[in-house]
């Protein structure tokens, strides 16, 4: 161990020396120290064992995938020279395989060369049935991953894959070093603590000390492929606390240089920025805060058939009610209060990338209480003695649940008020996020069971291809006791036409045609009002004014270009 450290240090020194002599090149590590604060601390540096965003992003400083997404959602080659496509022959004509070719001369931070064997190992590591790999979905339909030569990898799929960029694209699936993780496959994966806490990578930094759920110390990778980068010699990745405190350390006290995901009230953030020490940056991805309508009856008296397709909802099965609920909402105002510059009102559940974004539903951007009232009057829902609308003894009384989060509770309060203006009564309920999203079979409060009339949360998809995401609303995805409530179709929406479009998309490779299909599916969901989208949520982070080169990326790790960061003089 000691020997290898010395070897590493000398290798690094010689590297530095050569780069210093190279004409015009600046030295690695010239800008000293950089401090990053994530209010959720990293617990492990192996994204295959923890899918949490904080862990993936911390790991992205050290280990890297073959290709990444840039800030606009375009794929960029990272450890390869070009992205394989059908045109350049990298993807087979029948769409069942993709062939990647590693760049020449890549080395790990310990100086050994990166080979195709490492990539193959990583794939097998994740696909091991006993490992509990959290990125397994990325390897969906992969039948084999083989090394054709030292630098070439062929990934074969069991079905035609119009979008074969699941494995090894984006921060979720970086390459692990086969030599280091050799004994760590399958059931042994969790016990390799040293490996999981200090993976050897190709990234700009190497781990010097890892304290789980606390602080990570790193130093520049002496074997990094660009000898002039990174500009910082050491890096601290501090975790813990809350978003407000993290924002304060960058924007007000200047103790840290970069703070991640600052989900706090926009006016508070603006006030902090006015202290003049830092800058707020924001970017948009595919995250949409939405209300899911329950099309089935959540009445507790139904016992086991509660919230299942056996019983349609007493009033939400009426499209007029659903539409009125959507019309009564002022999305502009919700955005202003909850997210400020980090949000945009949206009428689509699929808001991005641009080619997939529909414009057919934009009428919802304007609140229309009068219109909603008229619609309900017309549908026969008339105000009763207490002002709550009813029809045939059914009152428009809604139980509205969401996870505990200050912004969500503000949204609930506002929406409750708007709904009361159209004669709909609302009871609010908020549930601890760990329980709500936890999916525990014994808990009645999970978002899949949806033992309420409507629920609100946010969802998005990795990367830029929406096929899997739109697949959430097919009939077979309806959560029910039969499938142990596992399924993404919260509204319990089921339409043959929708499933047909989805099947068509699965067999279509042409990007424009895929976009047309995705938009059609989005419009179908929107015009049926089974999902009420509210806000397209961006990512907000902050960096010190002295930190240069930050490019906020919502399609990949936020720290994707940390090698290019530097200190302004």
């Amino acid at each position, binding site marked *: 161990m000691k020997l290898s450290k010395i070897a590493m240090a000398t290798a690094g020194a010689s590297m530095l020396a050569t780069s210093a002599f190279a004409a015009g090149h600046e030295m690695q590590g010239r800008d000293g120290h950089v401090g990053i604060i994530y209010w959720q601390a990293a617990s492990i540096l192996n994204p295959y064992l923890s899918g949490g965003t904080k862990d993936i992003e911390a790991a992205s400083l050290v280990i890297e995938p073959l290709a990444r997404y840039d800030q606009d959602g375009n794929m960029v080659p990272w450890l390869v020279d070009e992205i394989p496509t059908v045109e350049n022959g990298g993807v087979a004509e029948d769409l069942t395989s993709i062939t990647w070719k590693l760049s020449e001369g890549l080395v790990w931070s310990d100086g050994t060369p990166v080979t195709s064997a490492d990539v193959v190992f990583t794939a097998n590591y994740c696909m091991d049935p006993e490992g509990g790999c959290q990125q397994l979905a990325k390897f969906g339909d992969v039948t084999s991953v083989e090394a054709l030569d030292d630098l070439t990898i062929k990934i074969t799929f069991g079905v035609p894959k119009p979008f074969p960029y699941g494995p090894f694209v984006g921060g979720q699936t970086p390459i692990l070093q086969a030599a280091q993780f050799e004994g760590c496959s399958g059931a042994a994966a969790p016990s390799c603590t040293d490996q999981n806490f200090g993976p050897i990578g190709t990234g700009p930094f190497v781990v010097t000390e890892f304290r789980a759920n606390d602080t990570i110390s790193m130093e520049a990778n002496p074997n990094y492929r660009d000898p002039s980068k990174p500009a910082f010699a050491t890096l601290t990745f501090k975790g813990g606390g809350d978003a*407000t405190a993290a924002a304060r350390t960058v924007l007000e006290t200047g103790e840290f240089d970069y703070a991640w995901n600052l989900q*706090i*009230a926009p*006016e*508070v953030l603006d*006030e*902090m920025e006015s202290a003049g020490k830092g800058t707020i940056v924001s970017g948009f991805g595919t995250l949409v805060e939405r209300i899911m309508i329950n099309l089935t009856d959540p009445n*507790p008296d139904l016992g086991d058939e509660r919230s299942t397709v056996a019983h349609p909802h007493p009033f939400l099965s009426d499209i007029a009610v659903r539409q009125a609920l959507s019309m009564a909402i002022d999305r502009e*105002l919700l955005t202003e*209060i909850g997210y400020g510059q980090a949000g945009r009102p949206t009428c689509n559940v699929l808001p991005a990338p641009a080619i997939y974004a529909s414009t057919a539903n934009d009428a919802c951007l304007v609140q229309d209480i009068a219109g909603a009232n008229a619609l309900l009057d017309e549908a026969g829902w008339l105000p009763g003695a207490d002002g709550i609308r009813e029809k045939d003894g059914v009152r428009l009384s809604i139980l509205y649940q969401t*996870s*505990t989060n*200050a912004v969500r*509770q*503000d949204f*609930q*309060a*506002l929406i*409750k*008020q708007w709904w009361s203006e159209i004669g709909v009564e609302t*009871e*609010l*309920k*908020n*549930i*601890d*996020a760990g*329980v709500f999203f936890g999916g525990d079979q*014994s*808990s*009645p*409060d999970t978002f899949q069971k949806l033992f309420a009339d409507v629920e609100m949360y946010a969802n998005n998809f990795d990367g830029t291809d929406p096929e899997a995401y739109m697949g959430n609303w097919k009939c077979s995805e309806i959560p029910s006791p039969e499938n142990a409530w596992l399924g993404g179709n919260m509204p319990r929406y089921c339409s043959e036409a929708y499933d047909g479009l989805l099947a068509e998309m699965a067999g279509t490779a042409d990007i424009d045609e895929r976009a047309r299909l995705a938009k059609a599916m989005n419009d179908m969901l929107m015009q049926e009002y089974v999902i009420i989208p509210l806000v397209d949520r961006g990512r907000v982070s902050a960096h010190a004014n002295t930190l240069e080169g930050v490019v906020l990326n919502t399609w990949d790790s936020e720290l994707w270009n940390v090698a290019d960061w530097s200190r302004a003089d």
Partner: protein
Amino acid sequence: MSDATIQAEAKNRSLWGDVWVQFKSHKGAMVGTFVFVFILLAVAIGPYLWNLDPTFANIRERNQGMSWAHPFGTDQLGRDTLAQLLQGGRVSIAVGVTAMLISLIVGTAIGVLAGFFKRIDGLLMRTTDLFLALPLLPLLLVIIMLFRDTLRKAFGPETGIFILIVFIIGITSWMQTARIVRGDVLALKEREFVLAARSIGTPSLRLILRHILPNVLSPIMVSATLGIANAIITESALSFLGLGFPSDFPTWGRLLYDGAQYIDNYPSRVVWPGLAITLTVISVNFIGDGLRDALDPRIRGR
């Protein structure tokens, strides 16, 4: 204070007269009583006098400072702070006092029994250890999961949650009182006056009520004061975790918590609920001091 004490003392009417005279002469206690009664009246009839709806979000008037229309200003959704404080006080004081009483009665009973009867001391104290060791948060999640829907159905969303919260806070905070009371009782029961009473054949129950309880009154009083503050704050922590009242149901603790993130921009958001909680706790504390003095026969009539 426990009912048992009141009964024990109530046998003699003139005793209460004495207590009242002594209580009146305690300046702090009188001020405390006055403030506490004022707060009680404010939250009891205040919402009828200041009849703005505390949950009504007036978007055009958000984050306002003090004005005639909103004497204490408004919050980030334009809800009137004064109306929220008055409404929230009802819940906070009700939760604080009820939960405190539960924990006090349970704690005192267990403490006295454990200290007095050697045979059940071990069992009761190990139970106390168990309760002290239970991980609070998972326990809350379990209780909520098991009972929230049942209680909501039986008593409606607000009363149901109220019962649940008071019960949770009560049964998770009696242990300190129990340990303290037991410690004092252990020492007391070897004192001369107890031995004397015992030697003339006083039955155990009477011994406890007449001789032991009055002498452990002061730690109980301190526990009571601390207990109210603890219950009000715990309630806010519960609602923060999504385990408390529905989110549009104001309580002092929640107002304080929600306001804390705006402390830079609008400090008054935290000052009002903070002041309300502190005033309540301090006034109860002084009442407790006065009562303790008034009930102590050695001080009374001095």
